[in-house]
């Protein structure tokens, strides 16, 4: 069997994305052992939404069997996915959900991601205290889902007061600056909700301010940070959005191309087309394990997790 799968990535601004593509490429290669030739063609560039729509159109021209996309917009691809489906192409989105009924989402539940961090923080703070949140890009769906996730949790903890929320655009340096400003104006905060790379920045400000012992803050999953976390015994917990999501999606895609059927149809999420993967969580209890997985990896490498072929097969009839 030969399959051609197109991978589209619309933003190349982070190591996480690079790792995502590398893992997906490795996953495709692994199918060789099963006697399946999976050829991947990749389009990965900084593009705007129209640019990524062009990615999909290019894949249609190229005549791929399936498209796996990390989309720049949840809703913008509806028409073009419909076109892909017309051309008999399987479309799977990963990392961010899409509204198209013609596509499937394989990835984590971003809302649960936000909730997990907040649960951890609430538990760590014993349900009371002042916290601030540093969010990603305002208006970006993944960000808004995460925010909705943590807000839902915080609603259950009335003694935790969210004193301010700012946006630092998933940028480490901006996260650091935002944290610095927040620390100056809210000297009495106990906790911080912050995501991804910005967490490393926020922690840097916390440490610079000498407040490492007084503040609990969510963290991130790159080796650099895990090392720091271990070394300085930070009071942190990190929800994992593994870069392996695209590899997982690819494994699912190949099985679907083989004509297999899911045991449980993918109907989760607000668009009822999602298949959620487990969300690992790192805190002091399993930090050492995570560190071990990352041993020998470069500093930018993220803790990861993916559906192996076997895991994926287990999901199918």
């Amino acid at each position, binding site marked *: 069997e030969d399959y051609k799968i197109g991978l589209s990535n619309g933003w190349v601004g982070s190591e996480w994305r690079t790792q995502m593509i590398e893992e997906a490429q490795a996953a495709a290669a692994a199918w060789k052992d099963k006697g399946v030739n999976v050829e991947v063609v990749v389009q990965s560039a*900084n593009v705007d939404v129209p640019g990524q729509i062009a990615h999909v159109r290019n894949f249609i021209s190229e005549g791929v069997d399936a498209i796996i996309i990390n989309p720049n917009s949840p809703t913008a691809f509806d028409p073009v996915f419909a076109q892909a489906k017309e051309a008999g192409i399987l479309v799977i989105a990963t990392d961010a959900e899409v509204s198209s009924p013609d596509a499937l989402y394989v990835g984590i539940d971003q809302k649960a991601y936000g909730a997990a961090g907040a649960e951890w923080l609430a538990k760590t703070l014993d349900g009371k205290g002042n916290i601030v949140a540093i969010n990603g890009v305002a208006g970006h769906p993944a960000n808004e889902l995460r925010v909705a996730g943590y807000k839902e949790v915080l609603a259950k903890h009335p003694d935790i007061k969210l004193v301010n929320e700012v946006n630092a655009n998933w*940028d480490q340096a901006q996260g650091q*600056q935002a944290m610095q400003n927040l620390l100056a104006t809210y000297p009495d905060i106990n906790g911080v909700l912050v995501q991804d790379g910005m967490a490393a920045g926020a922690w840097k400000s916390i440490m610079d301010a000498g407040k490492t012992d007084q503040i609990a803050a969510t963290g991130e999953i790159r080796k650099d940070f895990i090392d720091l976390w271990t070394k300085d015994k930070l009071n942190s917990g990190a929800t994992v959005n593994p870069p392996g999501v695209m590899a997982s999606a690819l494994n699912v895609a190949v099985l679907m191309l083989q004509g297999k059927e899911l045991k449980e149809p993918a109907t989760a999420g607000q668009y009822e087309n999602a298949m959620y993967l487990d969300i690992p969580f790192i805190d002091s209890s399993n930090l050492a394990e995570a560190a071990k997985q990352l041993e020998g990896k470069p500093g930018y490498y993220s803790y990861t997790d993916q559906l192996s072929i076997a895991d994926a097969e287990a999901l199918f009839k």
Partner: protein
Amino acid sequence: MDQTPRSRFSVIDIVKTPLVVAVALIVFLLFLGEYLSPGFASGQQILRLLIVAALMGIVAAGQNLVILGGREGIDLSVGGVVSLAAIIAGNLMAGENSGIVLAIVGCLAAGALVGLINGIGVTLLRIPPLVMTLGMLGVLQGLLVVIRNGIPSGRAAPGLSQFVTQPFLLGLPGIIWLWIVIGICMAFLLGRTMIGYRIYAIGSNEQAAFMAGMPVKTTRILLFVLSGMFAAVAGICLLGYSGSSFANVGEQYMLPSIIAVVFGGTPLSGGKGGYTGTMAGAILLTVLQSILTTINIDESGRQMVFGATLLLLMLFYGRGKALRA
């Protein structure tokens, strides 16, 4: 010689200089910040704001030079150079103090090379600077991806981090001293060297400068090279500030560095202005951004207030000449 001094520096003239305007606005904003969110204008916080301002200010130094050189000079590639330098530096020092020197040399060379290409495109091929540096920005963004796939992004040496974030001399971090030194060097360069005279001359009247025997093209290339190098220095410092390098760190400096220059009293038309004002402009912009982070409103509100405030502040600066004098 007929000496008829006509210098009547009235109070109004002094009050209207961009530097004074910027400083007054900074003080005002600090008070406002302290009023809106107590603790904003504490000594520690001001120091930390200055670190952030220094990062932007160093980028703006190069931007300032390119703009002073006239002919619609502008450098949009600084954002890319900052990111590039942070990544090169992180890899060359890889968390070791012993690698700092090599990292600095490597970054400056990379920044200079980018500037050189910009300069050659602008002068020898006569591509408008906006176009040339915009294209270069695209190239650098692509280069970053290639580099990051080949070489993992690295970590700052502890010495560098300390230099940027910890007190170094008289309670001030090294980066602020560095910025002060850059400020003095820029003032010296622009005011007390023939290169400085040349920069203003080509910015003011390129043809006249050429006819007076000034090396117009070389000077302009030099400006772009210096801009690349200043952006590289900022990239190294940014690495020290954030501890590790990561993609696209520099993007946030592209247009703000231009605004800092404008707030410092250097109009985009060139040939006029200086760096001291730009330093104040960088601080002003940083303080403004920080105030907005600390007040508790929606992001949409923050952006609207930020945009409107920028416009309002611009009314103090470089409004174009009236058509009907």
